[in-house]
């Protein structure tokens, strides 16, 4: 797994590439929570386009991120989820807990 962070009009975009599993999720957790900690009334959006795999430890990381971000007044967006990953969120009944968009443009209404 690799993460790449870019700024977008005062918001943060995290692009994740590769497998998110028990081995890589601690690194993701560190990246995600440190960005959330620094954010204030911002959007943190996660680009799932090149995520090839996610397991329960990856999902737990995002649930933790969501709880943390709610305290900061910022918002957590997901976009670009491959269908197989969307299916896992749906099965876990988390598709309505997270704000999931089809594309980056959809997320920002541009």
């Amino acid at each position, binding site marked *: 797994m690799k993460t790449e962070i870019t700024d977008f009009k005062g918001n943060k975009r995290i692009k994740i590439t590769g*497998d998110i*599993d*028990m*081995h890589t999720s601690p690194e993701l957790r560190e990246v995600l929570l440190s960005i959330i900690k620094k954010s204030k009334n911002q959007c943190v959006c996660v680009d799932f386009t090149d995520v090839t*795999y996610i*397991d*329960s*430890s990856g*999902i*737990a*990381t995002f*649930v*933790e991120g969501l*709880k943390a971000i709610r305290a900061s007044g910022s918002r957590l967006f997901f976009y670009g989820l491959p269908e*197989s990953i969307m299916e*896992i969120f749906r*099965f*876990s*009944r*988390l598709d309505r*807990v997270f704000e999931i968009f089809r594309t980056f443009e959809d997320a920002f209404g541009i």
Partner: protein
Amino acid sequence: MKDSVKIIIPSHPKYLSVVRNVTSKIGEIYGIDETIVNDLKLAIDEACTNIIRHAYKGDTTKRIIIRYTVNPGQYTVVLEDNGIKADKNKLKGRDLNDIKPGGLGIHFIKRVFDIFMLDEKKKKGNRLILVKYLK
């Protein structure tokens, strides 16, 4: 030996990707539908994750044995460890409506496997038997 493939890995999360790859390849060899293979990959990964986390309490120097046997109509995976015996009553996922980190692994395993059975006969450690019926 019949048609079994066995893989033994250290209980370190870095080896989970090896297991996922073996699951994929075995699916390919037996012509199993890709969607099902993806579900099997996740389920077997979660079973290994649980062994590392719960049976071995995070100790990454132990070992995990995974045996795949594919027969017509039946896909079986047996996972063995030498860790702390699982408490059968705790072996269940969280309520899916109670949103919190964790508690999804068992759900992901039971989603694809038709049989989820802890072999009581094993003396030390755990032997988890997972069976999926194939059409």
